[in-house]
């Protein structure tokens, strides 16, 4: 049953990513060159909703969390490296699979590159004994840092995210107004 659910959830996730345009190179690129921040706003809004949702369900014990261990070195360095690849490929590991389903050839190469990347990283780890495990600081979440009950923290977190999304949206509108004004002036000249 659980395995059957995996496919259903996968189809739903892939379909949502398709409908919102997250499987398109153009939209990811426009986000990274700060031309159209729809995708980051979409991601943050989903996080805001999920966060307050799961923490309220958790009050009744309906949801269990699975926090990934924080490792500041790994998370930050890994994230920085990831960002470079993200900008070059225009897909993330998940969306490249969906875009591959759509029939995009470049996404197929991203997936292939990913598999080779994992292979090289694992071999490197295997033969050098390289490990960053000593930098693990435990399964930390904001609840461990802000000393309030978990649900209140999630409410504050959600409100903060919505505020950030709102400010980003205002900034984007201002920017597009300026561009419009410039174009009008240019045309008048």
């Amino acid at each position, binding site marked *: 049953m659980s395995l059957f659910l995996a496919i259903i959830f996968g189809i739903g996730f892939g379909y949502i990513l398709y409908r919102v345009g997250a499987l398109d190179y153009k939209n990811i*690129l426009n986000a990274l060159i700060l031309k159209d921040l729809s995708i980051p706003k979409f991601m943050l809004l989903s996080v805001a909703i999920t966060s307050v949702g799961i923490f309220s369900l958790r009050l009744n014990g309906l949801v269990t969390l699975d926090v990934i261990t924080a*490792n500041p070195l790994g998370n930050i360095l890994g994230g*920085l490296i*990831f960002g*470079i690849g993200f900008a070059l490929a225009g897909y993330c590991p998940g969306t490249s699979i969906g875009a591959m389903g759509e029939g*995009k050839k470049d996404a197929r190469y991203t997936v292939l*590159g990913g598999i080779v990347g*994992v292979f090289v990283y694992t071999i490197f780890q295997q033969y050098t004994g390289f490990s960053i495990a000593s930098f693990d600081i435990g399964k930390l979440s904001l609840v461990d840092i802000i000393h309030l009950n978990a649900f209140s923290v999630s409410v504050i977190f959600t409100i903060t995210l919505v505020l950030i999304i709102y400010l980003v949206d205002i900034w984007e509108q201002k920017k597009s107004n300026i561009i419009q004004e410039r174009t009008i002036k240019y045309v008048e000249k």
Partner: protein
Amino acid sequence: MKARWSWVTGGIVLGVFNILIFLSGNHLGTTTAYAQTTGYITQFFSATFIPISSWTAGTCGTTGTLGVSWQWLLLIGIFLGGFLGKIIHGKGITKTVPDPWVERFGDRPRLRLSHAFIGGFIMLIGSRLAGGCTSSHIISGMSQMAVSGLLFGAAVFISGIPVAILLYRRNDR
């Protein structure tokens, strides 16, 4: 343009959808499945070359066996989801080289494909180092207010934005 959802609609739908995933007792994540796939391939050629534990040593938290896992089937689902979206709403043929790329670098499929490959290569090395990717660290991790997810999410955009701007600097309008 195809029938596209606004970011508001998309955000609400994914937000609620992700709550359902949590309710089912599962969590989104795709990096581990990449490692498992690579594991299948090397196991096929040699069982001793790299021990199974190196592949299953989890990024996004899975069991210790190398089998068809939840995450792997999730990936199959994502593939089918993209395929369905294309069939239901898509029209026309899928281009190998995306439009912004053609504007900036010209219609050069090989250049685009090599960037896509190198991008995927770098991305998954980063993912393995960070212990997760966009789905597990941002969509799932940040929802749980995980410190790992917040750090990762910030780092991705801190490096991704300048690299993309540099790549497209001449076309920047």
